[in-house]
C-alpha cells in the first residue's frame, strides 16, 4: 500500500503537470480537490485516464469519482480493490 501510494503521487504529479510539487508534498489523506491540491474537473478526467493507462482499471460508474478521488489513499484503496476483483 505504501509503495502504491508513493507511485501514485509521482504519477499524479507527472500526469497533472504539478511540477511545483514533490511527492512528499502530497499527504496520503490530503484532499486532492478544492481546498487541498486545488485540482479541477479536467484533472479528474486525467486521473481517470491515469487509472486506465497505468493500472488497466476503467471506472464503471463516474458517480464514484468524488469518493475515489478524495485523496491518494482512497485512490490506492480503489486500485487494490479493483485489481483484486479482476
Amino acid at each position, binding site marked *: 500500500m505504501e509503495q502504491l501510494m508513493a507511485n501514485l503521487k509521482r504519477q499524479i504529479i507527472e500526469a*497533472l*503537470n504539478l*511540477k511545483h510539487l514533490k511527492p512528499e508534498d502530497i499527504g496520503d489523506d490530503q484532499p486532492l480537490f478544492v481546498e487541498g491540491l*486545488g485540482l479541477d474537473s*479536467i484533472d479528474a*478526467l486525467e486521473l481517470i485516464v491515469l487509472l486506465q*493507462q497505468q493500472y488497466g482499471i476503467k471506472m464503471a460508474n463516474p458517480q464514484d469519482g468524488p469518493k475515489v478521488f478524495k485523496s491518494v489513499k482512497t485512490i490506492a484503496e480503489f486500485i487494490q480493490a479493483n485489481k483484486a476483483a479482476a
Partner: protein
Amino acid sequence: MITHHCRIVNKTIIVDGVVLFHSDAASLDDFLLDAYKALKIDYPKFYKMDNLSKAGFLAAEMLLKKSPALKYAGEKISLVLANAHASLDTDMKYAQASQSVPSPALFVYTLANIVAGEICIRHKIKGENAFFVSETFDAALFESYVSMIPADHLCLAGWVDVMGKHHDVFLYLQDNASPGKPHRASTLNELYKKEYGTVNG
C-alpha cells in the same frame, strides 16, 4: 495611448525596451518555466498551461503589474489578441497523444483563444475580447480594432504566437487615461520590430 509594451522573443522578456529576463534554456518549455520562477510569480495553474498560454500569461503579467489596472473594473478591461499559428502547437501534441489515450488536459488548450481566457481568469478581466488569426503581425488590424474599444476602457492587445520552438510575443496596453505613445499602426510596427526585427526559428 500605448503606455507599456512587452516583447518575448529569442528566449528573452523585454518590457518597455528593458530586458527583464533571458535564458539559454534548451527548449521553449524550459525557458517559460525558468521565466516563471525567476519572475517570482505565484500561480500554480501556470504549470498546466500549454506554451501559447504560458507565453501570453507571462507577457500579460509583466504589463498588468506595471499598469494602474486596478483602477479599472474588470468590465472595463478589454483584450484583443492575434497570432499566426492559432493553437496548432497544442493541436499536434493532442493528435500525437490521442494515438494512445486522448489527454483531457491537452484537449482544453486546442483553441487559440484559451490564452485569452487564462489571462482573463488571472486578472479578473470581463470586458470585450477578440482573437484573430493572420499570417503576420498586422499593426493596422490592431489600430482599427482597438480604436473601437470604448474610450474609458483599458485594452491589453497584441500578438502571441507559439509553434514548436518558435515564440513571438508582443503585447501592449492601450490606455486613454495615461500618457504614452500614440496608438497608430506605425508606432506598433516600430515597437514590434525594434531591436528584435528577426525572431527565432
